[in-house]
């Protein structure tokens, strides 16, 4: 059974002026223990919103309109806040985007790890918790004594690793890593990826890697979910996505990604911008930028449904045959 099963998740945001933004529409995916899913898309496509919805951490203006989030069979959207708090971290943990400020600057790093250990009942005495926090830091390659320092004394890469250590403190079933390598230099990025891979296999984690970096996805992920403007564009296992992409957007994405095997090839970019959420096109959200579109009426009238074109390969496109 899948440890995490998101079904038809739709999320709206309500602005101050009363406008309703359909930020996420009908997103579904599932994840098995020990597997990793790469969630790919441009900034603003809704990846983070989906992740926050899973943990029920949307801001007040966000509303989960429909769908289910099944964690080990239980729909998280139906349980009480108190029960949800017990799921957060020991069940599903998250490493946030841009860990620059994700740690409280006026508290030591170890105290923040200890906090979560004590909160979820793994330790009731401070010494045990401190010891364990030190072990966790060692696990991610940070000397245990440095736990007594403050976040600003850590480098960017170290902070990210500390966040990972903290995320794993309660040995979660699912780990969501939201852009874990953004704003870090390439060497550090490689270290972080290596770390995540190692931890995933050692702890048999179900990993969701949210990123806009296809290289990382190619290296680490079993499955890939490509999102565009709040909807699922394509969803398949990694091999399929890279070798046989069927959604025009996915195809362009891959073209925009330099292939080391073909140095000197042109980098293609996708002209235009994703549609603003308060001014969505009536039909397919990708249509204005689609290179396959040639005036087909259904592309202009209706946003395509997600269709399983072959086993374990889902695409949302009216023109699948053409691409």
């Amino acid at each position, binding site marked *: 059974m899948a440890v995490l099963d998101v079904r038809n998740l739709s999320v709206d945001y309500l602005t101050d002026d009363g406008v309703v933004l359909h930020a996420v529409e009908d997103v579904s995916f599932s994840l098995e223990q020990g597997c990793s899913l790469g969630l790919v898309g441009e900034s603003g496509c809704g990846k983070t919103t989906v992740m926050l919805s899973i943990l029920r951490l949307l801001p007040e203006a966000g509303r989960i309109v429909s769908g289910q989030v099944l964690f080990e069979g239980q729909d998280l959207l139906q349980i009480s806040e108190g029960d949800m708090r*017990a799921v957060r971290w020991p069940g599903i943990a*998250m490493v946030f985007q841009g860990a620059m*400020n994700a740690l409280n*600057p*006026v508290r030591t790093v170890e105290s923040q790890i200890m*906090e979560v250990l004590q*909160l979820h009942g793994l330790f009731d005495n401070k010494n045990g918790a401190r010891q364990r926090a030190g072990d966790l830091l060692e696990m991610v390659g940070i000397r245990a004594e440095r736990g007594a320092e403050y976040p*600003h004394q850590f480098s960017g890469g170290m902070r990210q690793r500390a966040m990972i250590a903290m995320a794993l403190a309660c040995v979660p079933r699912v780990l969501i890593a939201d852009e874990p390598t953004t704003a870090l230099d390439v060497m550090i990025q490689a270290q972080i990826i290596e770390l995540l891979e190692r931890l995933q296999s050692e702890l048999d984690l179900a990993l969701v890697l949210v990123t806009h970096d296809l290289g990382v996805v190619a290296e680490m992920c079993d499955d890939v979910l490509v999102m565009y403007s709040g909807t699922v564009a394509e969803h398949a296992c990694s091999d399929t996505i890279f070798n046989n992409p069927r959604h025009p957007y996915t195809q362009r994405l891959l073209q925009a990604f330099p292939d080391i095997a073909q140095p000197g090839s042109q980098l293609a970019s996708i002209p235009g911008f994703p549609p603003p959420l308060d001014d969505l096109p009536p039909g397919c959200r990708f249509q204005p930028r689609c290179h396959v579109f040639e005036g087909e009426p259904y592309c202009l009238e209706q946003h395509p449904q997600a269709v399983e074109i072959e086993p374990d390969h889902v695409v949302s496109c009216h023109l699948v045959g053409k691409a």
Partner: protein
Amino acid sequence: MQRSDYLIRKIGFAFATLVVVIVFNFFLFRILPGDPVRMIVHSPRMTREAQEKIEANFGLDKPVWIDKEALTRGDIPGAFDTQFTAYVRNLLRGDLGISFSTRRDVSELLAERAWRTVVLVGLGEVLAIVFGILLGLIAAWRRGSRLDTGILLAGLFTWAMPTFFFGIILIIIFRGRLPVGGMVTPGLKPEDGLEYWLDVGKHLILPTMTLTILYASEYLLIMRSSVVEVLSEDYILTAKAKGLSTIRTFRDHALKNSMLPMITVIALTLGYTVGGAIQVETVFSWPGIGRLMYEAVQKRDYPVLQGTFLLLAVSVIAANLLADLLYAVLDPRVKPE
């Protein structure tokens, strides 16, 4: 290592400001047109002995700042035998001169009255901080609600109101129900024990209330915006994601961060605090340093003016330094600029 640099810098700055204040204080009363000291010395109101004492103290026969002649002669100690050095020397001895109007030592006057101001301002500040923090928290929690808007408007309104006028309003409202002037009902003496102190306490109510309400309004505005800003920080989301309840998130993560700007603000507005104290003491005839300054202004009692200004400036500098030190203790990120 870095933090001790910060502390040294701050102490150095405080000391430098002190020097600036002392120099300024001296020159103000000598350089501006109508040298008041000379005018007073030759005033018929002064007795001969007082005049002589002042002349000696101030060294009026000597050059003001530096004795250039002596300098050219190579007489270094002589060059500094001037009014300014006499002034500094006296200062270090605690001699701030003699009040023109009461003939008493200025330092004596200050010492006598200082505690009264300390009690009033201290109480007012403490209460203001407490209320400011509480109300700011509530306003931030209920951000956007009518309660929040109400609190905001009340804050802006008190910011627009001069301190002395607010005091006058309170007098008009509470006249007859609470003492509106002085420190104690005439006739009572400290020897009367508890009765005396209770009476002082009653007299303290209105002036303290004036200060508290006015200061609290600013503190609450700062607290509110500080809380709102802190709550939008990433680490708050992390805390919630870890499974902390709203209350615990606030208590363990947001609170300390929200309060740090408060310290800065209190330090920044110390000047305003002192100004407020002067006005309140004047309006309520509370016999403290502020009222003394007012009386000195009325009577053109320059030594007292000089002395109170010095005392107030020094207090503010010292308080500022304390706030800086406190901030350094609480915020681990502090580095020398």
